[in-house]
């Protein structure tokens, strides 16, 4: 692991204003705007601010971690990845650094939303906060992999819309902005999407067992494996081609 490289990756991300706006400012503003007036509403058995805090944290951290991997697309386009390939930096370290950088950004978002939640009266025990953070961290794994996949599939021109579309779709279906399916077939469908379980993290923490159901682990594992396999295929196809 090369921490100087990681440091500069994080620095680069923080200097990208668009990133800060979409991963941090937007979720915060929405949280205060929507959850503020609805402090006492109960949604799916929990207080709305807690539900919405988790929803916005999921949305913002998904954006953070997806865009970190997806930035590979612009580094490919300008030829920077080729330059890195003639340094001793291994491909593995390159990807791990991208994922770690995405996670650092995601943690900024999680901490900011957590503080905002405290501001609106969200009450959780210390252990519950820790569990919530842990579940979000684990739930983000498939999105770190999808980010790397997008980074190899997308051209820079289409990256912005693609990222916006993918994160919005995952956030919407997952229930970041409020649960959209209460029952029936569509609920079963969205329960197979990892973002659903990201948003559900707060309910899981407050559930009698204090942990999510086994479906959480299965969905996260399958998405990570399938997307990881696809990313590996696309990466291999990409490195064969000489530009």
């Amino acid at each position, binding site marked *: 692991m*090369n921490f100087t*490289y990681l440091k500069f990756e994080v620095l680069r991300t923080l200097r*990208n204003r668009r990133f800060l706006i979409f991963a941090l400012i937007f979720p915060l503003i929405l949280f205060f705007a929507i959850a503020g007036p609805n402090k006492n509403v109960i949604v799916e058995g929990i207080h709305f601010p807690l539900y919405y805090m988790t929803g916005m944290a999921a949305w913002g951290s998904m954006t953070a971690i997806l865009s970190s991997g997806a930035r590979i697309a612009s*580094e490919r386009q300008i030829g*920077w990845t080729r330059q890195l*390939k003639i340094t001793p930096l291994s491909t593995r370290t390159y990807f791990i650094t991208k994922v770690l950088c995405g996670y650092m950004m995601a943690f900024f978002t999680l901490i900011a939303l957590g503080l905002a939640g405290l501001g609106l009266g969200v009450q959780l025990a210390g252990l519950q906060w820790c569990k919530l953070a842990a579940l979000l961290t684990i739930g983000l794994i498939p999105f770190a992999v999808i980010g790397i996949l997008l980074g190899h599939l997308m051209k820079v021109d289409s990256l912005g819309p693609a990222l916006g579309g993918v994160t919005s779709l995952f956030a919407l279906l997952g229930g970041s902005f409020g649960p959209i399916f209460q029952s029936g077939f569509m609920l079963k469908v969205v329960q197979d999407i990892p973002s659903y379980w990201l948003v559900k993290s707060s309910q899981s923490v407050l559930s009698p067992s204090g942990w999510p159901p086994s479906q959480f682990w299965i969905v996260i594992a399958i998405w990570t494996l399938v997307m990881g396999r696809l990313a590996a295929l696309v990466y291999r196809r990409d490195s064969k081609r*000489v530009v």
Partner: protein
Amino acid sequence: MSLRASDQAAITLQHLSKSFGEVHAVNDVSLTIHAGEIVALLGPNGAGKTTTIDMVLGLARPDRGTVTLFGSTPAAAVLAGRVGGMLQTGTPPQYLNVKELITLVASLYPHPLNVEDVLRITGTADIATRATTKLSGGQTQRVRFAVALVADPDLLILDEPTAAIDVEGRRDFWNVMRSVAESGKTVIFATHYLEEADTYADRIVLMARGRIVADGPPTEIKAQVGGRVIRATLADVSAEELMSIEGVVKAERQGDGVKLSCRDSETSDRVLRTLLARYSGARDLEVRSVGLEEAFLSLTSDTAMSVRPADDEPDLGESGTQS
């Protein structure tokens, strides 16, 4: 062969070939470059320079043949930090300033140079705090050179390093490169400017259509590609007779016209005077410098296929006649 060269081979290419579909980008190239040599890979666009360089760096896999860098594979040499490269494309990433970028790259190598030293040597110290996206063409190239140099590599490979720089910037760049190379590094650079190859290399490897067509010291190569051609309409005089004019390297008859090749502008002037004095019937006189393209065509036997030169191909003959 250069006097600076030691016995150790920095690069050995053996029967290297690579095709893209029907196109033989590199076709059976064998080459040995000794440690300490400064070698120019000269040729027009499409000659196979970049494909060769990509294979040397391990960025492309050869269809056939082997690449050996300092006795090992390209990947091993890269991993050991012995290779620094300046690729044809490779814009520095954004949201960093110049010094941060060089520091980042230095952190990737096992035994990098001091970052401040690299900034000073490459003339980028004054733009150290400038964002990588706010540089002029010449500054960008110097920064990219610093990226290649900070590794303190034994082998520096520069793929058309002066593309998109003005003439003055080009000279500055080469002076920096030359001073770096003095420290005993092996340097290979690709260019389609004969002048650059002539001025800054100890040895020129001329490539055309994926093959090496000439290899030797600049004076030798210049003689082959830096000459002048006189064309005239002149009937009833044989090529053999024209060969007797002092300074004519090659004489050809093309219908009513004749084509005389000379080594440089000085001899072509003399040949022209003799020609006019001897044959009053000579008309439509034309003196041209031999471009790289023509030189390649004359050096390669297969003239049916034309070599496409770069759009910005300079008048190479002129530079070849200055000395």
